[in-house]
Structures are given as C-alpha cells and as structure tokens.
C-alpha cells in the first residue's frame, strides 16, 4: 500500500491541475485588442437589443420607476441564494464606464468578467451567447448613452458550493453552447429572425423551461414551462402543447406587446416588465418572435 501512495498523490495532483485548467474562464476577445472592436456600434439598434433583452428587469435601480437608471442592487432570489445584479450604468467608478465593447462581449457571449472571472448564469449568458458580436456592440453603444448612477450592489449571498466561482467552469462545460444560430434555409427570414430574438437576446427559455438539479435547462423540455427564479411560481408552457395552441400568431404578437391575452387576461408577475420592454421593440421584431414561438413543436405540460 505504501508503495502506491506517491502514485495516488501524483494522480490527485494531476487531477487538481487538470480541473484547474478545465474550469478556467475563457474570454472570447483579448482585452489588449479592444481597439479593433470598439467602433461601428449603433445606439438605436442597441436600444432594440436592450428592450428585447430586458436588461432593466434585473439591473434597474430598485424603488424608482425609470428603467434606464441601471444602478443595480435588485435582489434576485433563487434556490441557490440571492444574487444582486450589478450597476451597469456608465458610471466610471461603480458602473461599467470603463468597459470596452470586448468586455461586454466577453460578459454576454462567454460569461467572463473583465477581471477574468466566471459570471454566474443568473446573467443568462447561456442565451445571450447566441447573440452576434455586432448586436452586443450596438448594445454597448446604447448603454453608453444612459445616465451614470452611483453606488454598487451588495455582493451575492450564496451557499457553498455555489459561492465558488471557479466551479462554474464545469457548469459551463455542461450547459454553455454559444454561437449565433445558423439560419435554417427551410424557414422564412422572419422565422429565423424570430428564433434569433427568442433564443438569444430575448432569453425566453430561461424562465419558460424546467431546470435540473444543477440549474441547467432540461433540453428535452425547452419552452415547455418552468418556474420563476425564486422557484415559487409556475411559468407557462409556450410550446404548442400548452395554452398557446389556441392562440394565433397575431394573438401572440398582441400578448407580447400589450400583455393582453385573447381571453382578456392581463399578464402579471415578471412578464409585466418583459411586456413593457417589448412594447418598445419594433413591431416587425415582435411579429418575428411570434412567428417562431407559434412554430414551437408541442410538448405536453407537466402534470400538476
């Protein structure tokens, strides 16, 4: 036995080193090359990404009504603990005033911070990673037009082992599949635009799908209904196996842009903020999202 001990120690050491490398945060864009990516953004197009992405739902300063004051600090309660989304206003000290376009690209497309740490997927980069670089650049251009807000959010309050950021490297291996979707030539341009908006910036699947024990989306039940972030309330099935089977594409457009269902109900909860934001997106984009959502193959809702 004693003879084997050095070998065991060696294997453990090799494993630890391998785990360290495997879990390393990997930015997509090297920060020292930031100048090459900085120019060409369009604030008006970025505003559309902001509205479809619903950034303010989590990053808005709580307790005030202006959705463009992004001081952070809202408490996002989850089964893993409480997240406090940061200040993403252009404040030089407390916000992201010193960020370059590549920093936002690394955050949204790879879930990596400028300090080369993993972000928690409470920032839904599993979806945002399907965005194009150009759209992220436009978004950054828009964010820079917003008012600087002082003050920082409190640190996240998470229990072990979720408070070990490095561990997210393994989580990403399991669940992060980035890259903009390849257009499906058998579908219309509108459908492809809709899929991009729903799967990427819109991040609809993040709430409308169930999650497994590790907090990853259950792929086979994508869009078939889930739970709110706090795990307390149900989020509806939006495939054709749920209530949307009875809705036309135009009904879905109306729901997304006004919050009113064809039955006359008015959506509430977190979806109310989503609707407020989507109401400011171009009607053509809402129509595209509705086209894609109406095409989602039926998955039956989970039993009660």
């Amino acid at each position: 036995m004693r003879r084997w001990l050095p070998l065991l120690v060696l294997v453990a050491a090799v494993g630890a080193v391998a785990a360290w490398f495997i879990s390393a945060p990997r930015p997509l864009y090297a920060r020292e090359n930031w100048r090459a990516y900085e120019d060409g953004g369009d604030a008006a197009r970025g505003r559309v990404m902001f509205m479809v992405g619903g950034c303010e739902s989590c990053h808005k300063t709580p307790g005030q009504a202006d959705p463009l004051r992004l001081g952070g600090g809202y408490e996002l309660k989850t089964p893993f603990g409480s997240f406090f989304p940061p200040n993403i206003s252009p404040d030089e000290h407390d916000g992201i005033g010193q960020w370059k376009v590549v920093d936002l690209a690394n955050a949204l497309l790879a879930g990596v911070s400028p300090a080369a740490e993993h972000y928690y997927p409470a920032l839904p980069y599993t979806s945002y990673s399907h965005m194009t670089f150009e759209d992220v650049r436009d978004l950054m251009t828009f964010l820079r037009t917003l008012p600087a807000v002082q003050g920082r959010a409190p640190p996240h309050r998470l229990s072990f082992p979720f408070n070990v950021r490095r561990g997210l490297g393994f989580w990403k291996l399991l669940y992060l599949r980035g890259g903009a979707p390849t257009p499906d030539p058998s579908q219309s341009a509108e459908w492809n635009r809709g899929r991009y908006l729903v799967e990427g910036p819109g991040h609809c699947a993040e709430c409308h799908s169930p999650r497994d024990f590790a907090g990853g989306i259950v792929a086979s039940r994508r869009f078939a209904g889930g739970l709110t972030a706090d795990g307390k309330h149900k989020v509806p099935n939006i495939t054709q196996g749920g209530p949307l089977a009875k809705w036309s594409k135009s009904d879905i457009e109306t729901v997304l842009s006004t919050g009113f269902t064809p039955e006359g109900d008015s959506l509430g909860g977190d979806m109310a903020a989503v609707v407020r934001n989507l109401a400011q997106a171009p009607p053509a984009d809402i129509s595209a999202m509705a086209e894609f959502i109406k095409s989602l193959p039926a998955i039956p809702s989970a039993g009660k």
Partner: protein
Amino acid sequence: MRRTLIVLTTLALGITAVLADSDVIAQRRELMKANGKATAPIVAIMKGGPFDLAAVQASLKTFAEAGKKGPALFPDNSKTGDDTAALPAIWENKKDFEDRFAKLAADANDALSTIKDEATFKSIMPNVLKNCGGCHETYRAKKS
C-alpha cells in the same frame, strides 16, 4: 335563555364570517373574470377590429365598477384558501393596492366621458389598460 341566544347568534355570525372567506375569494374571482370578459372586445378593437363605442362604454363601466368594489373583496381573512392567486404582497401594501383600484375606477370613469370615437379610443384606452398589468405584476401569482 337570552344568554344562549346571544351565544348562538355570536357563533352563527362567526361561522358566517369564516364561510365568507371562500365566498369573498369566489366573488373577487368573478369580478376579475368579468374584467377579462370586458377586455376581450377592447383588445379586438386594438388589433384592428371595427370600433364599437357602445361596447367600449359597457367595458369601461365594468372596469369602473370593479375599481369601486375591488378593495372590499380582499379582507384580512382571505389571504389564503380556495387556490387563490392573490399574493401576500396585497396585505403588506394595502394602501397602494387600494389606491390602484381607485385609480382604475377614476381612469375608467374619465375615459367614459372622453372616449368618443376611434381616435380618442386609441389615445385614451392604453392609459386605462395600464392599470391591469400594473397591479398583476405585483399582486397576482402566476397561473397554470
């Protein structure tokens, strides 16, 4: 004898109060259902259907009525039960909750006198409808 009567009456009142819990939940559910029913024709017009002033006015009267009756249908003893979608936030912010009902009634009554044609409908109606989502956002649990 008189004492027995008083005790019985008190008991009966108490039981009625307890029964009223689920009764009041059913009543507010009906009220919201009526609101939904009244909203459907409004949404149809917003989506480009023919404008019908009489239908719009009928719906606005329903909303105004709901705004008036609403607050009384959320007594302290109706926080839970009967699978209610009402969230505890209602009773934690009772003043705001009741103010919102009052605003719905005021906006609906206002719209009753100001909406005269399709143009005024388009400019005024969204303001009335904002009240629905505004309240559901904070005070109603998700369904299904």
